[in-house]
């Protein structure tokens, strides 16, 4: 292809620049760093749209033309260079890869990031570490952009860790708050723990495929006639083939970043960061990385049914559990956090149940479509929540209520976002969710039922949130809000995106095998989903539209079940139990004892011995020349005596 994509490199370079410049010189010009970051992000967004426009529209191959590997869309690698060469066959490359997936992700990430930047210029105004904040934000965007365009699996790992670091920095942005520090550490350690699996998976996969490059790995691993494939599938460990192990481990990394069920514990705590950061983490940059990773290696995942099942059931379990927990939370941001987890679960199980190619690949398209639409409405939800929190100065639902009057614009935006996430027709969420449910219906009935149930619960808790915040009782605190343009503009743009994003013919562009996919939705399925969502909404309206005691009584009736769910299934406590009781007591404590008493003791013994010896012989070095001379004389006499009378 031509070099018309040269500008695409700037998509990566600009955020890096705006990370470095304000990071280094921002202290002196705090206002400029915000403007600089937003402007550069605007340019990046324009470039990303331009890239997408070129890729999908102007440079699209003619109808009926297919690339040698069967896809309609070209796989372009720009600006590739070798970073580390081990031998002729193995080298670490850096490159920018363009394919439908990464171009789509570029659009999502840059859009949401731009909105968050713009929003932050108003939201974070007056912060002491304003320029540092923008610097970190740019780093975060840079790492995620680098992740989505990575051309090989090792490059993805590097940017993956960068995402982890920058999320650590941003979650712990208010580092004088102990809970924020703890949350940042928790997020970092949990995802790091998952990344260990990811790294092992990378090593296994690249060992068996003999390459780090995605294109090569996919070519070698996705055909069952390939020698590499039979090698990897034949080798087995604990009764499971090496390929499955590799994929499951890689998925573990993805699950950590995407906050899938057993590794989700960091996500709610990550709400300690500034709200725009939560929007960025939840909508575009961090949690979707896991979905992206699975999608990136999708042809390989398709070769292992076991790995796909793991993905599907983990996703489904996360979707349902998160939705249940979300119903019980009272912190507005935590509800949104669990809803993110639930929606990511949707994407995951949609990927997991999908097959490769044609109609079977509907799940793949649907998952990415949902990623796309979810980014828009989730960013909108978080930014609205940010505006509400800004006005109320509290995260708790009970401190809010009746905000419809003072914040009409936010209220409407939030309403549309809730409709979208509930899957109400003509809003973006409807289309993507519809596709996911259709795909699930055809492939796996259990997961379909889970998804349907989750859809109902989702609309229930989202509207519970909406009614509790904006309707319910009278305005308690008499809030007067002034919404800066920098806050309303992103809300407006995202509202439009939320409403309209569903009309993009997504399957035409992004599909598992690169061929256009036209999905026909079954009207009966749509109806079922809509009815279930409607029930959820009506229940929420019944319970929360007016101030009632009924919700309290229901939760009291549910008793132990309610407490179990409200306690987030006690997973945190379980982990604490395991780490404290098992790891600390059985492994760390004896190890510490050995270290303190035997290793340190040995060292101390050596030190003490040396100290005692030197203390004993120290007076010899008296500094008195006469003593030295006396000893010298005595020594001379003794040696001469020895020489004369003994040696002779």
């Amino acid at each position, binding site marked *: 292809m031509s070099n018309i994509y040269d500008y695409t490199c700037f998509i990566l370079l600009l955020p890096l620049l705006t990370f470095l410049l304000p990071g280094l010189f921002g202290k002196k010009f705090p206002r400029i760093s915000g403007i600089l970051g937003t402007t550069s992000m605007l340019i990046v967004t324009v470039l990303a749209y331009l890239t997408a426009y070129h890729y999908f529209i102007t440079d699209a191959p003619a109808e009926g033309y297919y690339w040698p590997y069967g896809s309609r869309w070209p796989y372009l690698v720009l600006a590739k260079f070798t970073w580390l060469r081990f031998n002729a066959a193995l080298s670490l490359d850096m490159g920018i890869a363009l394919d439908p997936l990464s171009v789509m992700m570029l659009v999502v990430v840059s859009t949401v990031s731009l909105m968050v930047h713009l929003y932050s210029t108003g939201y974070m105004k007056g912060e002491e570490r304003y320029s540092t904040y923008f610097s970190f934000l740019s780093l975060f965007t840079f790492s995620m952009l680098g992740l989505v365009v990575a051309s090989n699996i090792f490059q993805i790992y590097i940017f993956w860790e960068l995402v982890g670091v920058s999320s650590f920095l941003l979650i712990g942005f208010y580092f004088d708050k102990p809970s924020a520090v703890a949350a940042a550490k928790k997020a970092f350690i949990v995802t790091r723990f998952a990344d260990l699996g990811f790294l092992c998976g990378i090593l296994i996969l690249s060992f068996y495929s003999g390459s780090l490059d995605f294109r090569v790995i996919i070519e070698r691993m996705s055909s069952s006639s390939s020698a590499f494939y039979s090698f990897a599938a034949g080798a087995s460990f604990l009764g499971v083939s090496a390929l499955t192990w590799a994929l499951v481990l890689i998925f573990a990394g993805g699950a950590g970043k995407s906050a899938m069920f057993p590794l989700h514990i960091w996500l709610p705590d990550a709400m300690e960061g500034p709200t725009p950061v939560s929007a960025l983490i939840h909508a575009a940059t961090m949690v979707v990385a896991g979905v992206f990773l699975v999608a990136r290696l999708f042809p390989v995942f398709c070769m292992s049914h076991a790995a796909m099942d793991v993905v599907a059931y983990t996703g489904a379990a996360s979707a349902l559990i998160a939705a249940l927990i979300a119903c019980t939370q009272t912190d507005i941001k935590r509800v949104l956090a669990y809803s993110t987890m639930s929606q990511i679960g949707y994407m995951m199980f949609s990927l997991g149940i999908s097959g490769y190619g044609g109609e079977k690949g509907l799940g793949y398209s649907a998952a990415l479509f949902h990623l796309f639409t979810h980014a828009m409405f989730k960013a909108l939800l978080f930014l609205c929540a940010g505006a509400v929190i800004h006005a109320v100065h509290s995260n708790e639902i009970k401190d809010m209520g009746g905000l419809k009057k003072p914040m009409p614009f936010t209220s409407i935006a939030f309403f549309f976002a809730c409709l979208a996430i509930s899957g109400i027709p003509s809003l973006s969420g409807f289309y993507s969710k519809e596709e996911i449910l259709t795909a699930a219906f055809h492939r796996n009935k259990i997961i379909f039922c889970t998804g349907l149930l989750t859809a109902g619960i989702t609309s229930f808790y989202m509207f519970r949130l909406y009614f509790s915040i904006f309707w319910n009782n009278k305005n308690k605190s008499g809030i007067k809000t002034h919404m800066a343009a920098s806050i309303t503009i992103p809300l407006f743009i995202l509202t439009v995106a939320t409403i309209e994003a569903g009309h993009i013919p997504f399957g035409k562009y992004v599909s598992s095998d690169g061929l256009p996919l036209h999905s026909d939705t079954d009207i009966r399925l749509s109806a079922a989903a809509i009815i279930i969502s409607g029930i959820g909404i009506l229940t929420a309206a019944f319970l929360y539209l007016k101030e009632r005691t009924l919700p309290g009584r229901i939760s009291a009736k549910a008793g132990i079940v309610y407490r179990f769910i409200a306690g987030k299934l006690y997973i945190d406590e379980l982990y604490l139990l395991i780490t404290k009781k098992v790891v600390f007591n059985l492994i760390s404590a004896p190890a510490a004892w050995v270290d303190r008493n035997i290793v340190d003791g040995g060292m101390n013994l050596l030190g003490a011995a040396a100290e005692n010896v030197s203390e004993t012989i120290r007076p010899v*070095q*008296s*500094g*008195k020349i*006469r003593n030295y*001379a*006396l000893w010298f*004389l005595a020594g001379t006499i003794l040696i001469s005596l020895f020489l004369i009378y003994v040696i002779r």
Partner: protein
Amino acid sequence: MNEIPLHLVLFVSTTLFFTGAYGFLTRRNMITMLMAIELMLNSVNINFLAFNKYLFPGKAEGVFFTIFIITIAAAEASVAIAIIINLYRKFRTIDAENTDSLKF
């Protein structure tokens, strides 16, 4: 004066040497310590010359060694005194016991 036995000359030099050694061991003043060293050097010179005279009368090594030792003694004395003067400027004392900054 060949009738004087060699060991008598050596007796003188040995006595002088240990007198110097005694002085070095007991004195604290650096200048007196330097004097004691001069005594010891002189006793060595006496030895060299006596051996040259009694044992190797046909050779001159002892004489030359004596000359060199006297030269080096002069150099040593000048350096030592320079050091002593400098020390005195720094510490206002030339007591060897007090100038122990380098101790330990």
